[in-house]
């Protein structure tokens, strides 16, 4: 069943703790900062929240209650969610499902994380590989960049331009890990990591927290939440990797998951005003805007150069700064995307506001491999019927 055919679900509150390099501040404090901000943003109390999902990947077992008990022990269900980079997106999806199904009226989806060593389960599958531990995410994306450049004649500068745009956006985001504009020369001349990817084309993985509160229409009414600031979640799609041969599985997964989400929401790619996507590495944005149908195959570099994906362009891509500049603390990342899209659709994004934004999508991929896409729709402008 489509989310849109179930009970309507609204984002009513958002809150963040800035993404930043690892500090000695306990995760509990990071998480509480985000949750308290989300409650204040919604104008509701903790006792109004009926369930909580927490995305986290490197904090160990049972992260929720040691943190959330400090809001008052109300006995609500609390569930930890791990889905690699998409952990926060999964937490949000589960919260939306719970409200849509009528199980709860008000649910918290949050993410909190801190850098720490992590073991990937795939390495425990007992199967050998040809390159083993040599192939880490940036290696894989450096290979995809080489393949993309060969296929479409793109240049290193075309790929670096993604990072230039997203660092520019991140410089306007007080919650971003990286808040500094970078010139193309700085991006291209930065420390080489793999292939054509330099350090500034790879996302920073630090600490942080993000929180989003979703609610039913009944709860919005009952709690007196400002309807003009409620953003409806019109689709939630999640898929896992199939067999794609030599094609980029991230791009193929993105293609089918985004298509499913947009179809469920009844939105064409041309109707999307704001996109937050998984730009952990600069090359990904070029591949994903094409896979999402925001432009044709091989056209992304030219459209980016023409400013179509800038704030103020045809469709703002990663106005938060994306993973490249806002950062990728992993557990919070997918929730933070929803917070940014919500801010944009409310018209509250300040000097990084995409003018007239009505429809937005949040997209994450995670190793494993999974992809999650949500479509959000902003409140109708004054005087217009929903």
């Amino acid at each position, binding site marked *: 069943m489509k989310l849109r055919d179930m009970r309507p679900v609204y984002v009513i509150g958002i809150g963040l703790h800035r993404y930043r390099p690892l500090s000695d501040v306990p995760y509990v404090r990071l998480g509480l900062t985000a949750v308290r901000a989300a409650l204040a943003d919604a104008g509701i109390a903790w006792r109004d929240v009926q369930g909580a999902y927490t995305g986290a990947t490197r904090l160990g077992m049972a992260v929720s209650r040691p943190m959330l008990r400090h809001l008052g022990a109300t006995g609500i269900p609390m569930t930890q969610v791990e889905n690699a980079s998409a952990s926060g997106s999964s937490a949000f999806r589960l919260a939306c499902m719970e409200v849509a199904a009528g199980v709860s009226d008000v649910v918290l989806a949050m993410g909190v994380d801190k850098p720490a060593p992590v073991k990937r389960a795939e390495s425990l599958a007992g199967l050998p*590989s040809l390159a083993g*531990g040599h192939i880490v995410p940036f290696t894989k994306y450096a290979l995809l960049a*080489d*393949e993309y450049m060969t296929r479409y004649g793109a240049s290193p500068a075309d790929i670096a331009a993604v990072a230039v745009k997203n660092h520019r956006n991140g410089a306007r985001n007080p919650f971003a890990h990286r808040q500094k504009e970078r010139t193309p020369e700085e991006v291209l001349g930065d420390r080489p990591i793999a292939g054509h990817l330099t350090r500034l084309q790879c996302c920073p993985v630090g600490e942080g927290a993000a929180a989003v509160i979703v609610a039913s229409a009944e709860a919005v009414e009952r709690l007196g939440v400002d309807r003009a600031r409620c953003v409806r979640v019109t689709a939630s799609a999640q898929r896992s990797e199939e067999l794609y041969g030599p094609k980029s599985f991230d791009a193929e997964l993105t293609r089918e998951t985004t298509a499913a989400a947009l179809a469920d929401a009844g939105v064409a790619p041309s109707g999307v005003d704001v996109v937050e996507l998984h730009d952990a590495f600069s090359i990904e944005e070029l591949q994903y805007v094409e896979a999402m149908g925001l432009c044709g195959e091989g056209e992304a570099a030219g459209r980016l150069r023409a400013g179509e994906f800038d704030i103020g362009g045809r469709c703002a891509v990663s106005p938060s700064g994306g993973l490249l500049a806002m950062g990728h603390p992993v557990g919070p990342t997918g929730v933070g995307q929803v917070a940014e899209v919500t801010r944009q659709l409310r018209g509250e994004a300040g000097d990084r506001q995409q003018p007239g934004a009505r429809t937005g999508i949040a997209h994450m991929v995670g190793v494993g491999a999974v992809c999650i896409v949500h479509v959000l729709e902003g409140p109708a402008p004054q005087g217009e019927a929903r």
Partner: protein
Amino acid sequence: MPEPHPAAPAAAIADPRPSGPPDLRGVACTACGRVAFPAQDLGCERCGADGAALRPAALAGTGTVAAAAVVRRHDGPGIDAPFTALAIVLDDGPFVHALLDGDGGPAPGTRVEAVAAGTDGDGAIVEVRFAVSGDAAGGAA
């Protein structure tokens, strides 16, 4: 304290041939025809068949570079950078990531072949790299 998940001993992944590059140890599914690397008996990724339906398959250690990247840094223990990572379409079908035996970044379309880079005590090949092959100019299959 014991490691909760002790590392498995390196598994044999290729077998030498009298001449030419070693064969890679792959798997063929007799139920659906899928050919894949590495060898495994857990179940076919396309159709789910397991057990006797999965047969060992010797894959020719030849293929074509789809992409290459010179890796300048790596945080993993025991891994020294730089090295060159390759994406290769094997002539027998599977798409694999592997390491270049040599320096630089061969252009997509370059022909490569497997070379034994490490053997266990019994002479089985447990580490394979790929080198640019003699027929570099020729027939990207």
